[in-house]
């Protein structure tokens, strides 16, 4: 990844940024890297193992990173949507981050099957070999969504209870999500306590439902929550369902345009209300 390494070196040497957040080879595969010295840029790689969404390190909740100084971040097209989201919601100033967009052939995830973007548009620099736009396909996740929608309510309830009862409320899904930025999450609130903190199915349902609802129109479909979950709960199914609802009703898809307003928080006078008596 010579062009990436050279760019990183330039940015560090001329002081444009204090740290380049990219990917390196770790003991178990590609992982996030924080390069602060020009001589370390050789650690930077990009390949099909680079699934992590590095935009999450820009979130102001990461106080230990804020003090590092101005950052450059390597971002795939999906990751760039998260950066746009952070800028849109005024969590990050656009001119405080240098976006190194990377052309992505897919990182082997199910969500890559339905991805049509191969080159991030919101980027200060573009690296990587040009990649042909793929034909969109149906992902396993979408097939599972259709399967669930065809079930009876009782069958769906049983499916979700089996999945959600495994949740131990480690909150990895929240901590890794670039769009979960609240300094004080509603799930931590105890006076009063709206979401039971206990990891039984009742508390877990309340938590997961709340997180998914708070992500409506904001989730960028980076897949990190599901990847982080130590239990392998299919959180992406819930988020994808809500994304479909938001798209169908409010004509909104995750976007790398920071100027586009989020759909929940906006409204139209003629929003559909067929479900309201």
């Amino acid at each position, binding site marked *: 990844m010579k062009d990436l390494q050279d760019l990183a070196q330039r940015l560090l040497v001329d002081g444009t940024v204090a740290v380049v957040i990219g990917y390196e080879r770790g003991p178990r595969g590609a992982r996030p890297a924080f390069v602060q010295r020009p001589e370390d840029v050789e650690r930077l790689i990009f390949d099909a193992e680079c699934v992590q969404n590095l935009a999450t390190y820009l979130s102001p909740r990461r106080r230990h990173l804020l003090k590092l100084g101005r950052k450059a971040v390597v971002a795939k097209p999906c990751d760039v949507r998260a950066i746009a989201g952070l800028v849109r919601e005024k969590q990050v100033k656009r001119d405080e981050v240098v976006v190194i967009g990377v052309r992505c052939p897919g990182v082997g995830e199910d969500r890559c099957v339905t991805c049509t973007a191969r080159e991030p548009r919101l980027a200060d620099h573009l690296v990587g070999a040009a990649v042909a736009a793929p034909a969109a396909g149906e992902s396993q996740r979408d097939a599972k969504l259709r399967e669930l929608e065809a079930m009876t309510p009782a069958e769906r309830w049983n499916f979700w209870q089996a999945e959600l009862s495994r949740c131990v409320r480690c909150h990895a899904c929240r901590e890794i999500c670039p769009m979960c930025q609240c300094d004080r999450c509603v799930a931590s609130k105890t006076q009063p306590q*709206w979401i039971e903190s206990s990891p*039984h199915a009742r508390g877990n*349902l309340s938590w997961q*439902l709340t997180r998914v*609802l708070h992500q409506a129109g904001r989730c960028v479909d980076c897949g990190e929550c599901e990847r982080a979950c130590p239990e392998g709960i299919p959180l992406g199914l819930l988020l994808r369902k809500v994304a479909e*609802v938001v798209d169908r009703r409010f004509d909104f898809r995750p976007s790398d345009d920071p100027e586009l307003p989020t759909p929940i928080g*906006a*409204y139209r006078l003629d929003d559909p*209300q067929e*479900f309201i008596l």
Partner: protein
Amino acid sequence: MSKSTQPSTPSSAPGDVAFEPRLTAFVCNWCTYTGADLAGTSRLQMAANVRIIRLPCTGRIDPLFVVKAFERGADGVIVSGCHPADCHYTAGNYHARRRFAVLQELLTFLGVEPERLTFSWVSASEGAKWADVVNGATERVRAVGPFAAYRALVADALPADELQPAARGGAPRATTATEERA
């Protein structure tokens, strides 16, 4: 294993005469609450199964209110407010409309029977409509039965009658620490 927190009923099968659904209604102060008042002063007959919680505006309604109602024993929930363009705070119901749309689709996707949720716009002069909404929601919930599934979510729950004070029909005080519990 359903540990009902309802007053004890002989049986609780859907459609059973003995089951009285318990519904919670989250309504806005300016339109639906006033409309419900009108239904009352007009002596309209309607089901007595609904407990009303008054809020300034449907825009105040957090989806967690609905979840909490189910957690705490509601078999069904009604959410009602001002018609579009009539909101006392101009746009509260527009915001609410988007949130409710996502909420009800998500709850349905999670396996909650759609009959348990009712959304309506009821204005201050629509006492008769409120009576219809209440009656309709009550019958829909009666048909799908008690929300036993929600109450069964806590696998290691203590039996409900142990958590009721004895004075209110709860179990007599357990006597010894070594008594086995199921």
